[in-house]
């Protein structure tokens, strides 16, 4: 709780982000450089899948970030709802669009991976369906920010994010149950536990790099929102003008 109340002050947050934002950005660039080299050139081919297995290194971290971003939104929403910290609203809002983009990226890369492996762009598989629903939840969350002025919209968005957060596991398990009911022949998935260190290392580096990228985007988003709020506060009201027209 200590760090949250410390950062809740915008001035202190800006001092923190002045160091943290570039750090996250550079770590993301370096991590992506190393990770892409390791995953695209350094890692071995998979026996059955060949080169298409390399899609995993951009797909799995995207899925991880998509879920992490929503968790962040839900946490920030809880903080904003209970303690009414305005900065928590900015954090939740800043995470929404990157999170939605990572979710879309998960679906797109998954689809590109599925085409050569499963022979189809789309399967109503439990995981794919729940990621699609997550994207729907993100779209609703982003949309609700525009329905009212910031203060009310922030509160409504926080309520929606928390309701969505509680429902995500319910939706996930329903979809998995539904999927096993309707499709006994489930598509085979990459057996993750048996993955070797040669595959695991690039994946972890890419995961870290993606996480820093998400953190950098969120921090930049919060900074932008703080600047916009400050500008809105400091805009002097233009003097009233009256035009008198001759009758």
């Amino acid at each position, binding site marked *: 709780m200590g760090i949250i109340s410390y950062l809740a002050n915008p001035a202190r947050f800006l001092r923190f982000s002045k160091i943290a934002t570039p750090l996250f950005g550079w770590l993301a660039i370096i991590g992506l450089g190393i990770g892409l080299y390791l995953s695209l050139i350094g890692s071995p081919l998979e026996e059955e899948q060949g080169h298409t297995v390399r899609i995993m290194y951009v797909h799995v971290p995207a899925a991880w970030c998509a879920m992490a971003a929503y968790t962040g939104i839900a946490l920030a929403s809880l903080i904003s*709802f209970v303690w009414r910290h305005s900065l928590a609203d900015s954090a939740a809002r800043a995470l929404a669009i990157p999170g939605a983009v990572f979710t879309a990226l998960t679906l797109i890369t998954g689809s590109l991976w599925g085409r050569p492996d499963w022979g189809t762009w789309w399967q109503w598989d439990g995981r794919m369906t729940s990621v699609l629903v997550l994207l729907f939840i993100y779209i609703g969350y982003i*949309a609700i920010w525009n*329905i009212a002025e910031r203060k*009310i919209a922030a509160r409504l968005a926080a*309520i929606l994010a928390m*309701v969505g957060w509680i429902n995500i596991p319910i*939706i996930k398990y*329903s979809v998995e149950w539904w999927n096993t009911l309707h499709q006994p022949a489930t598509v085979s998935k990459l057996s993750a536990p048996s993955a070797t260190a040669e595959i695991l290392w690039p994946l972890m580096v890419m995961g870290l790099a993606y996480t820093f990228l998400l953190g950098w985007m969120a921090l930049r988003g919060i900074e932008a929102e703080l600047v916009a709020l400050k500008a809105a506060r400091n805009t002097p009201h233009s003097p009233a003008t009256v035009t008198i027209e001759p009758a």
Partner: protein
Amino acid sequence: MSPVAEIIKRDIKLAARSGGAWSYGLVFMAFFLALCAIALGGKLQTLKDLSIPLIWLSILFASLLSISHIFRQDMEDGTMAQFKLARLSSMTIASAKTLSFALIYLLPLILTTPIWSQFFGLGSAELVGLCLALLIALPAIAIYVAVSGALLCAKQSGGFLAIILTAPLLIPTLIFGIAAAQNFSDAGIAAMEFRILAGLSFISIAIGLPASAAALSANLEG
């Protein structure tokens, strides 16, 4: 008389005087199902398999299309502000309005399902299962639509947004509701799906009513 009963009585009276506005959902449902049957070729044999999912969808869409009756109309004409002045809690208002929405706009849809189901030649066992599943899911449908209604009650037009916000929350209800209706002829009311459906309705009460109340408060404060 408790405020909840008072509000429900008032809503029923208003609906009765509205010149039939409460029945638009029914008309929509009949149109939607007829259009589906025509679009799908009109052969009863093919339609029969699709009837339960289509009836479920028609009820979900009909309830989403009557979303403005839950909170927005009272918000616009100032009734909501009067409720607040009368020191009713948001929870009381949200519960009462959700209940009256379920009674006036959702219950007629479910009660007339036997009529529309004949568009599809649905057998009697399936029909009983479908109606039971719908009745058990009624709280979940009403409450999640009400959550969107409370979130959007200050906005003039929010039809599409209401669908976007509500649809993800209703996916489990839709999945288990359809499965329960389809499994009724095998396992009866004791089917696992019915119990899960009842659980989903209870969860919706626990999550959805406080969420509607909080959203209502946020919109009334602003």
